[in-house]
C-alpha cells in the first residue's frame, strides 16, 4: 500500500511543478524549435559567406519575400495547400506503421485524371458541384492506384516500401503515357491536357490569390489529427502501427485496415493534386513530376503526427521555399542553395528533436 501512496505523492508533486514550470516550458519549447533553425542558418550562412554573399541580407530576403511581403506570403499560403493534404495522408499511414513512400506517384495519377476531367466537366457544372466532383475523383483515383501495394501487402505480405517506390516510377511513366495517348490537347504542340480555364478554378479568398484549397488543407490535417486521436477507427490504426500482433490478438481485421490505410493515405495525395490543379495549375503536362511527397515525409515525422506541428513545419518549409528562390536570385547564386538549406534544416531539426527528448527525459 505504501508504494502506491508514494507514487501518488510523486504525481501530486509533478502536478505542482508542472504548473510552476509551464512558463519555462514554453520558453524551452520555443528555444528547441528555434535552435535548429538558428543552427542551420549559421552553417548555411558560413557557406554563403564563403561564396562571397551577405548571409544577413540573404536570410532577410527569404523572410521578407516568403513571409512578410504580401506577394510572396500569398504564394507561401498557396504552396502550403497541397503539402498539407499530402501530410494529412501521411499522418494516417505512418502512425499505422505503413511506409507509404509512393505519394508522388499517387499525386500524379490523381492529378492527371482530374486534369483531363476538369475541362470536360467545367462547361456543364460549376462551383461546388464541379470542385466536389474533382476532389472526389482525385481522391478516388489515387486510392485505387494504391490498391496495388495495399493488396500486395495485405494478402501477400509484400513490403510496401519497395512496392510504393516502384509504383511511383511506374505512375510517372503511366501518366505520361495517358497524357500523350489519350488526354493530349491536340491544339497544343506540347503534350499536355486541356486547360481548366482560369474562370473555372477554385474560388479565391479575402480578395487575395489564395484559393480555398488552403482551407481544405487545414481542415484535412486537423480532421485527420482528430480522427487518429479521438475515434475508434483512429485508435485501431494506431494499434496496428504500434503492435500489429496485439491488433490481431484483439480481433481486428488486418486486411480491411491495411486497405483502409493505403486508400486513405493515397487518397489525400490524390486530393492534393486535385486541389492544386483546380486551384493553380489547371493543366498537366506529360513528364509532370512535382516530387513534393518526399519532402513532406520528414516534416510529418518531425512533427510526430501532431496537427499543430505539421502546420508549423509546412508553413516554415513553404516560407523557405518561396522566399529562398527569390533570395537566391537576389544574391545571384543558384537556387540549389535552397535545397541545401532544406537538407541542413532537417538535419538540425533531427538534432533538435534529440535535444528535446533528452531534456524531457531529464525533467
Amino acid at each position, binding site marked *: 500500500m505504501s*508504494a*502506491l501512496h508514494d*507514487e*501518488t505523492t*510523486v*504525481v501530486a508533486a509533478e502536478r505542482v511543478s508542472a504548473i510552476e514550470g509551464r512558463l519555462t516550458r514554453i520558453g524551452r519549447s520555443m528555444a528547441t524549435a528555434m535552435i535548429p533553425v538558428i543552427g542551420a542558418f549559421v552553417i548555411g550562412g558560413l557557406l554563403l559567406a564563403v561564396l562571397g554573399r551577405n548571409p544577413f541580407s540573404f536570410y532577410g530576403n527569404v523572410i521578407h519575400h516568403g513571409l512578410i511581403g504580401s506577394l510572396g506570403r500569398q504564394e507561401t499560403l498557396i504552396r502550403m495547400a497541397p503539402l498539407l493534404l499530402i501530410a494529412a495522408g501521411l499522418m494516417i499511414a505512418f502512425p499505422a506503421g505503413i511506409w507509404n513512400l509512393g505519394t508522388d506517384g499517387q499525386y500524379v495519377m490523381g492529378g492527371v485524371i482530374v486534369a483531363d476531367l476538369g475541362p470536360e466537366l467545367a462547361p456543364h457544372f460549376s462551383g461546388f458541384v464541379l470542385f466536389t466532383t474533382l476532389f472526389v475523383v482525385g481522391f478516388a483515383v489515387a486510392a485505387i492506384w494504391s490498391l496495388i501495394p495495399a493488396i500486395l501487402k495485405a494478402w501477400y505480405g509484400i513490403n510496401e516500401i519497395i512496392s510504393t517506390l516502384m509504383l511511383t516510377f511506374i505512375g510517372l511513366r503511366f501518366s505520361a503515357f495517358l497524357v500523350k495517348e489519350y488526354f493530349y490537347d491536340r491544339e497544343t504542340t506540347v503534350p499536355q491536357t486541356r486547360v481548366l480555364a482560369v474562370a473555372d478554378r477554385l474560388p479565391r479568398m479575402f480578395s487575395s490569390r489564395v484559393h480555398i484549397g488552403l482551407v481544405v488543407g487545414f481542415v484535412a490535417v486537423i480532421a485527420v489529427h482528430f480522427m487518429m486521436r*479521438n*475515434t*475508434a*477507427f483512429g*485508435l*485501431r490504426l*494506431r*494499434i496496428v502501427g*504500434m*503492435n500489429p*500482433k*496485439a491488433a*490481431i*490478438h*484483439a*480481433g*481486428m*481485421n488486418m486486411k480491411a485496415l491495411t486497405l483502409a490505410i493505403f486508400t486513405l493515405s493515397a487518397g489525400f495525395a490524390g486530393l492534393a493534386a486535385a486541389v492544386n490543379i483546380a486551384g493553380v495549375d489547371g493543366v498537366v503536362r506529360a513528364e509532370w513530376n512535382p516530387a513534393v511527397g518526399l519532402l513532406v515525409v520528414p516534416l510529418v515525422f518531425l512533427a510526430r503526427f501532431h496537427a499543430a506541428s505539421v502546420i508549423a513545419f509546412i508553413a516554415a518549409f513553404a516560407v523557405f521555399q518561396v522566399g529562398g528562390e527569390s533570395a537566391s536570385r537576389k544574391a545571384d547564386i543558384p537556387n540549389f542553395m535552397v535545397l541545401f538549406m532544406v537538407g541542413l534544416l532537417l538535419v538540425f531539426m533531427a538534432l533538435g528533436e534529440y535535444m528535446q527528448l533528452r531534456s524531457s*527525459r531529464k525533467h
Partner: protein
Amino acid sequence: MVLANELTPSVELIGITKTYPGVVANSDIHLTLRPGEVHSLLGENGAGKSTLIGILSGMVQPDAGEIRIKGETVRINSPRDALERGIGTVYQHSLLVPTLTVLDNLLLGVDQGWKLGRDAAKARLQEVSTLLDVEIDPSSVVGDLALGQRQQVEIVRALWRGEGVLILDEPTSMLTPQGAEKLVQVVRRLVSNGLAVVFITHKLNEALDLGDRVTVLRRGKIVGEVTPAELQNRSRAQITDEVLKMIFGEKSDASYAAFASQVSETADETFRVDHLSVEGSGPHPVLDNVSFTLKRGEILGIAGIDGNGQKELAEVLAGQRHADSGEIILDDQSIQNLSIAARQAKGIRYVTDDRHGEGTVGPLSIALNIVLKRVGEVPFWRWSLVRHSSIREFARKLIHDHDVRAPHEEVAISTLSGGNMQKVILARELALEPRVVVYNKPTYGLDARTTSLVLASIADQAKAGVTTVFISTELSEIVSICHRVAVMYRGKLSEPIMVRSGIELKLGALMTGSTTL
C-alpha cells in the same frame, strides 16, 4: 563449504545504488559472491533483482558504489567487460537472435575475428550439452525452437565462457521437474569446480534447496540473509517462516490455497473440441487430432513442455489461428468459422502468454489496454467517438477490483511490472461475462504472491461457472487448481485424468514422451 569462505570472494558489491526516475531500484547493496557457493537471491517482482543482475552483467551502470572482482576494484562498463571478467548470465527473457542458428548464437560476441571457429564450437557445444544432459541441434534456427529449448541454449551460452560467476535469472521457470532436477545437478557440479553461482528466483523452496546462502531483497534493499550455517542447523519450517517475512514484510500469505472445488455432476457440457488438427512444416503435426469436452465451471489443465502445441491450441480456440480440420463447439453450436471478434462476443476469452508481444500495446494507457478488444463499442465509444470518461471509469473499477498497482489509469502500460500487466490482462478478459477462458501460462514470470492471486481469481471465476482451459508448464499450479489434467506432447493431447495428489511424476513422464499417452 568452510573452505570456500576463506578464499578471496569472486565478486564483492559494495554500496551499490541505482535510481531510475521516480524509483530507487537498488539502494546501498552489499553482496559477496564466494567461489564454490550457490547464492540465492530472493525477492518479489520489482524488489530490484533484475537491476542488480543488470549491474553485474554490465547492462546497467550503477549511480554509486563499488564492484570488486577477486579483490580488485573494477568498472563493468558493458556486458563485454562482464564476460571478459568471467561473469556469465542467463537472462529471464530470451536474449538470443531468433534468425541465427544455435551455434551462431553461441559464437556471437565470442569470436570477434575473421573466420569463425565453427568446428571447435560444435565440439564445445557437445561437451556442454552432455554436462547439462540436454540435446541441442547446433544447426537449428533459434526462432524455430520452443521457449524451453531456447532457455537451454541460454544456459549453454552462459556456461560457455562462465569461468568465474554464473548468474541464473529464474532458470527453472520453464523446465520440467526432471529438467529442473538436472539443472540442480549441473549447478552442483559447477560449484564443486569452484564457480560462484547466483540463483535468482521468487520460489522459496528452490532458493532454499539449491542455495548455500540466501539473500532477500525488498524494495531495492537487502533485508536479510540466511547463512550456510543457519541453513544447515535450523529447521526448514523455521527458516521458511522467517524468509517469508523478509520477502513480504510482516504479513505473509504466499502459500497456495487449495483452490479446487468439485464440479457439479449435473453441470452441462458447454464446450467441446473435436478432432482439431493443424499441419506443420516439421516432422509431426502442430496439432494432432485434439479432442476434449468440458462442463460448465470445469478447469482443464493442459501440461507439457513448451513448444508441444499448447500455444497453437490456445490460438486455434481464440480464432487467431486457422485449423485444418476439426470443430469447436460452444453450447451445441459450432464456432469454428467465427472471427476472433465474434468469438469474443460469445464469451470466449484468451489470456495470452505473450504479454508484451501481443497482450498489450506498450505505449497506450492502462485504460485503453483494458478496452483493447472493445474498440468502438458502446459505452466506451459513441458515434465512433471516444468517451474517455467512460473508459477511465471502467478502467478504474477494474484496476481496483483486480488490485492493479499503478499510479493511475492513464499511465502507459509498458511502465507496469509483469505482474501488474498480467492483472490488467486478466481484468480485461474476465470483465463482461466470460463463458470460456483459455489461459496460456498466466503466471509466467510472476512472483509468488501475484501467482497466488492470479490462481485464486481463476478458481473463483470457475466457481462462478466459467469453463476454463488452463495451459501451464508449472505442475504445482495445475495440481492446485485444476479438476482434470491432460498432457500435450508433439501436438497430441492425452486423455484427461482427474487431478489427485502425487500425480506430478506421472505427468512429468508424459511430458517428456517417455511413457505412452
